[in-house]
């Protein structure tokens, strides 16, 4: 286990370094970075001065070194729009995103896992078909469209819920449903197939043969064994919530990390873009690491293979 943990930690550190490199490289895709890093209304005569001051006249390798040194200390420069530390802005928005993502995860666990179990246990009945259809529909429905339609029905027509913003528990309802929809659909299908795999095992037949009630067979013998693949895959998919938050937060004017990223992209506030994208990537990598380590702890075969 120790060797596995060390090698996975090393791998993750390498991925973080390479991801920061990728962020640096991405910003250079568009040609002259000065155009990305200066406010739109800049005077032509000031451009050269800024170019010198921001260090864009230095060799690329020097610029790269400076970026990496700064990034590893959490210094991505100052926001062009707010004149404040870029990473500070990102961290300020983090709690809102965590609240939203957390609610989406809870909602998913409460709805998707029972639904997945139910469709597996009642395989090939009307319940199974309906549940599976709901999951397939949930997977295909674009979140931003679902969001707009929910706003139309529940905010515009019925006036039950606010159209956007943050503050009361009511504000949280629609954004978390929209963010959870795709994730819940995936988890329902994962749970169903993981349950079906275990239900075919011989020890389930044995459990039934020795006269255990169906509740115990499903709850104790099946679900516990199906939990490993569900937790792993759900953990890996949970990272995609950070991507989903970009869209959900924009629709519902939710003041989180995703909305900050989109606004920074629209304002061409690139220090904030780089801070937000790098931060998301680091969180994502750590999440994957946590899932892998948990999996390795639960299932010894994984440690040996790696």
């Amino acid at each position, binding site marked *: 286990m120790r060797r596995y943990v060390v090698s996975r930690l090393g791998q993750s550190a390498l991925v973080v370094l390479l991801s920061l490199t990728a962020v640096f490289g991405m910003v250079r895709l568009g040609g002259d970075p000065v155009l990305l890093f200066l406010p739109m209304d800049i005077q032509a005569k000031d451009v050269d001065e800024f170019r010198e001051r921001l260090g864009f006249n230095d060799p690329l390798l020097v610029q790269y070194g400076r970026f990496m040194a700064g990034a590893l200390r959490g210094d991505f420069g100052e926001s062009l729009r707010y004149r404040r530390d870029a990473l500070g802005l990102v961290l300020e928005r983090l709690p809102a995103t965590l609240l939203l993502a957390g609610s989406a995860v809870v909602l998913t666990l409460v709805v998707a896992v029972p639904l997945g179990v139910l469709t597996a246990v009642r395989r090939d009945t009307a319940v199974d078909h309906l549940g599976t259809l709901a999951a397939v*529909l949930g997977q295909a429905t674009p979140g931003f469209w679902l969001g*707009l*339609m929910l706003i139309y029905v529940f905010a515009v027509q019925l006036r039950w819920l606010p159209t956007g913003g943050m503050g009361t528990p009511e504000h949280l309802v629609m954004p978390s449903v929209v963010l959870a929809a795709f994730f819940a659909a995936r988890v329902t299908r994962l749970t169903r197939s993981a349950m079906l795999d275990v239900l075919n095992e011989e020890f389930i037949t044995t459990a039934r043969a020795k006269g255990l009630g169906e509740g115990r067979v499903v709850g104790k013998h099946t679900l516990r064994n199906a939990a490993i693949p569900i937790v792993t895959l759900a953990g890996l998919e949970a990272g995609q919530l950070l991507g989903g938050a970009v869209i959900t937060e924009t629709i519902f004017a939710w003041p989180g990390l995703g909305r900050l990223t989109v606004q920074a992209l629209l304002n061409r506030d690139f220090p904030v873009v780089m801070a937000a994208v790098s931060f998301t990537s680091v969180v*994502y990598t750590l999440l994957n690491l946590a899932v892998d380590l948990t999996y390795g702890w639960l299932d010894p075969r994984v440690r040996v293979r790696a």
Partner: protein
Amino acid sequence: MKKSLGLALTLAAVVAAGAAPWLTPHDPLRADFAQSLKPPGTPGHPLGTDQLGRDVLARVLHGARLALFIGVCTVLVTAVVGGGLGLVAGFVERWPSAVLMRIADVQLSFPFILLALTINAIVGLGLRNIILSLSAAGWVVYARVVRGEVLSVKQRDFVHAAAALGVGRVRLLVRHVLPNVAPSIIVVASLQFSQFIVAEAAISFLGFGIQPPTPAWGSMLSESRDFLYVAWWLGAFPGLALALTALGVNLLGDWLRDTLDPKLRV
């Protein structure tokens, strides 16, 4: 059920895209202010008109063209680039394989939509750039799947036999390994396709990608936000078209996976 519904929906999208100019007499770009914001069911405008009096049905049908075009182009680019790299990495192993896997790790450390969105914001707007951004963010899935498949296929007896008979490496790769990897490429392509068209719509919705007045589903949805209080149909129909197309292609992909490659089943 999967097969027939998937085929029907996909076919409907293809017909809508191919025959858009013949299915409706309206020009998706022509404004007619006298007819603005007419609800669905208005004579001559079955799905209503938008704020400029443009026919919503015509715009949705022409949107199918754009969506499918972007989906097909992106899938082709990612399949050729990602599949090709995966093929080589799996076949040669050693450093090409290691390098490719590290690049894949890095790309997978960004959520797909965030990566595509950021690249698009940097390289710029328009049709070519959205295809480029989606491809740059999406090729890695092929590379990984194909590499894994090649690693297992090349251990099979018929490959060893061909190599023992003196078949050259390139011929071995193209004639013996590639055909056995092709089913996976097709399955991944169909599952990626809907992800690409939804991502394109999301990016256009956020104000990047395809810009108004071009009738793209994402930019139509984006414009519809300002009229949500007065005209629900502006957002409902393009989104429905997008959801049904994604559903159709997804079902078809699921069916293909079950038929061609049971191993990929999750």
